[in-house]
């Protein structure tokens, strides 16, 4: 069986596995099982989560005044310390769990947090299959919010059936342009997309700061940088009425993820993307045009991240403010890595991280433990996923298949 024991960066092996699997074609359910629910992949993900939570617990214990005090007389009365530690950590993680899954409102919040993550996750996962590393999610997210927002609050008097799709389309376009710039630079001049996308992120952040103070964007009655509000006809409606914040953007994100899956696994373009990721030279000899794939994939990816931006604007925030992206573009990278760069994996990973975020907010409100803990957990989980050997040696998990080495995806600036 050719399961992927090792998560990405293994797109190369995956592409091979992909073809082998397609030959026998065991049906989508079986493929889903081997790809996502595969025993060891799931086990390693679970262990990564547990390890990250354990390290998070240590951080909580060390940073909380109450537990730190009991540490000072630890050798006299160790029981005090363990009781205090148990109480603090249990209280924090309990609040986190309740905030993520305890009741319908918590579920709604989890879905709200997961929605932009699905889209920015796809923005990294899709180009990664062509071995293109898109660090530009943050800037593309902003591009979507800016151009989509311009249509969302600049155009009025349209019925919702026209205005809302137009706003989403404009948002997609805004990020697609930002992604395309990096793609065309790579195709035409060989400029490494990691450098150009990082630079474009910062350019877009500064551009947002500038635009928010122009008459085009700024809320008329305010001197500070805040945009006008998206019109009602361009606002994504709520899914379950006023009691819950979850909006149709979540459904849209899931549909987009399924469409991305279809494109990757069933369409010619998807085949070309994976072929270029597998070996650009071979793809060129086979009559494909890697340069076209570079700019096309980065433009689509930019559009996906941008959808995250406009969905967040139209479904949740309503207005653009400085720091609007709030790291959601970067979080998309961690989501995609946890989801092994498969669109369906991205949905699952976004739900997990969305739950952590929603729970983290509840934890912060209940126990005054900072939400930033969630960012640490997220990074730790992905570090453990990216280096499965670390988790294996930590938990003594044996490799089922002897894999030579963890191959790299990018291989340097000059790749």
């Amino acid at each position, binding site marked *: 069986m050719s399961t992927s024991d090792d998560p990405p960066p293994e797109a190369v092996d995956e592409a091979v596995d992909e073809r082998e699997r397609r030959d026998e074609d065991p049906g989508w359910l079986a493929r889903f099982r081997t790809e996502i629910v595969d025993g060891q992949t799931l086990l390693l993900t679970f262990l990564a989560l547990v390890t990250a939570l354990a390290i998070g617990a240590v*951080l909580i214990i060390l940073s909380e005044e109450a537990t730190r005090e009991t540490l000072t007389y630890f050798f006299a009365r160790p029981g005090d310390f363990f009781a205090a530690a148990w109480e603090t950590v249990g209280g924090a993680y309990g609040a986190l769990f309740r905030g993520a899954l305890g009741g319908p409102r918590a579920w709604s919040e989890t879905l709200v947090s997961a929605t932009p993550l699905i889209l920015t996750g796809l923005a990294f996962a899709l180009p990664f299959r062509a071995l293109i590393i898109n660090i530009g999610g943050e800037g593309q997210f902003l591009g979507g919010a800016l151009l989509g927002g311009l249509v969302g609050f600049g155009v009025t008097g349209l019925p919702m059936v026209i205005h809302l799709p137009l706003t989403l389309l404009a948002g997609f376009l805004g990020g697609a342009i930002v992604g395309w710039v990096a793609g065309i*630079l790579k195709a035409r001049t060989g400029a490494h997309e990691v450098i*150009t996308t990082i630079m*474009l992120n910062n*350019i877009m952040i500064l551009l947002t700061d*500038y635009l928010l103070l122009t008459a085009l964007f700024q809320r008329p009655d305010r001197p500070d940088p805040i945009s006008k509000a998206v019109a009602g006809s361009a606002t994504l409606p709520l899914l379950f009425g006023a009691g819950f914040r979850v909006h149709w953007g979540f459904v849209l994100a899931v549909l987009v993820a399924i469409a991305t899956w279809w494109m990757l696994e069933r369409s010619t373009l998807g085949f070309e993307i994976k072929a270029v990721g597998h070996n650009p030279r071979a793809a060129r000899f086979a009559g494909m045009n890697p340069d076209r794939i570079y700019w096309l994939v980065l433009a689509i990816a930019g559009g996906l991240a941008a959808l995250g931006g406009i969905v967040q604007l139209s479904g949740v925030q309503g207005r653009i403010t400085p720091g609007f992206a709030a790291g959601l573009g970067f979080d998309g990278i961690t989501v995609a890595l946890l989801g092994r760069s498969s669109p369906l994996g991205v949905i699952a990973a976004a739900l997990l991280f969305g739950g952590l975020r929603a729970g983290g907010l509840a934890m912060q409100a209940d126990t005054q433990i900072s939400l930033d803990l969630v960012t640490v957990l997220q990074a730790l989980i992905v570090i453990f996923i*990216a*280096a499965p050997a670390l988790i294996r040696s930590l938990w003594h998990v044996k490799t089922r298949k002897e894999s030579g080495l963890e191959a*790299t995806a990018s291989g340097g600036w000059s790749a």
Partner: protein
Amino acid sequence: MSADLDARPAESTRDDGLDPTSPLVTRRRAFGIFLVALAAVTLLFLLGEGGEATFVLRDITGGDPYFQMPDLVVSVGTVVLVVAILAAFAGGIQLARGFGRRTYLVLGLVLALFVFAFLTWATAGSSLNLLAILRLTIRQAVPLVFGALAGVLCERSGVMNIAIEAQFLTAAFTGALVGSVSSNAWVGLLAGAAGGAFIGWLLAVMAIKYRTDQIIVGVVLIVFATGLTSFLASQLLTPNPDLNTPAIVSPIGIPVLSRIPVLGPLFFNHTIFVYGAFAAVLLVHWALFKTKWGLRVRSVGEHPRAADTVGINVYRIRYQAVVLGGAVAGLGGAFFTLDSAAQFSEEMTAGLGFIALAAMIVGRWRPFGALGAALIFGFAGSLSGGLAIVQVPIPSEFLLMAPYLVTIVVVAGLVGRPRPPAADGVPYVKE
């Protein structure tokens, strides 16, 4: 990136007797047209209000100069005309026969003159403290220099370092914390270096031992450091303000030199960080290009297999370079809390780690190149503040974008494509 002719700028401009359709001639023409266009743009500055511009060069840092430099008062029209004529002249020569090896030097000089003409135009009718802007340029360049040098050290050994931002943040935090607890800036400085080295060590373990994709490790380390320092700041520092009041370093005037007008306040009346940044450039240059260790680092970064064959321990050299690089970046991170701000605040490095990365690339993986790029980027930063004072209708955001735009132009190969170390980012597997 292919090893085309563009990769070697020194040779690419020796274009005498070349086929007129060759890309080298096209580049020569492009630069010539650029210079002429620059001259035309300069002439647009005549459209302003004109008059005189006053540049203040007095020492306002409280030094005791041998004499005070008088203000520099120039006529806007004259400066603009002279610069435009010089630029057009240079463009003409470039178009006619080219400057050969000196193309970039001429280009740099003309651009500097252009910036001066622009400043004159912007200041017309009022006064600008040029000395303060230049001094701030040097201070703003300090973390960039340290960060870029860290990148040079890591990447010369073949490990990509995207995580300069993570090293900055961690070091700024540890520097503030230890500097507060010990009430000693020097101890804080060491702690900052240790914090940066810690992130460097994490990068090394993930990249060298576990052979994880280095770009991804870099990004994840940035997320990790951002989360960790923000978490600890709100959990530890906010409730205990005395943990966030580090002892800061004070300026040390160099005897005699610091009293020279203009040059004194510019170069010789700074904190240890500024002197350290210049010293670090020399040291890293010396270590990389004049020592046996440096030769090994570079060979490991260019061709690890060959280095291994002659008995160099590739892994050990890479660990050393990456951890040392982390410590150097840590010094840059400590600058934020032990020199400029005197306290840690969440995400205080504000993307400067990425500008340091850009400075490394624009500086072509060389210590002196990194210094030059850091100074140019620092100037853009300090100018954006200076222009706000003279109320120029150019939003500061666009000046702050300059480093990023310059970097994109450079990596796109428009101004001499940089060539990274051959094995940069490629994990080495010993056979």
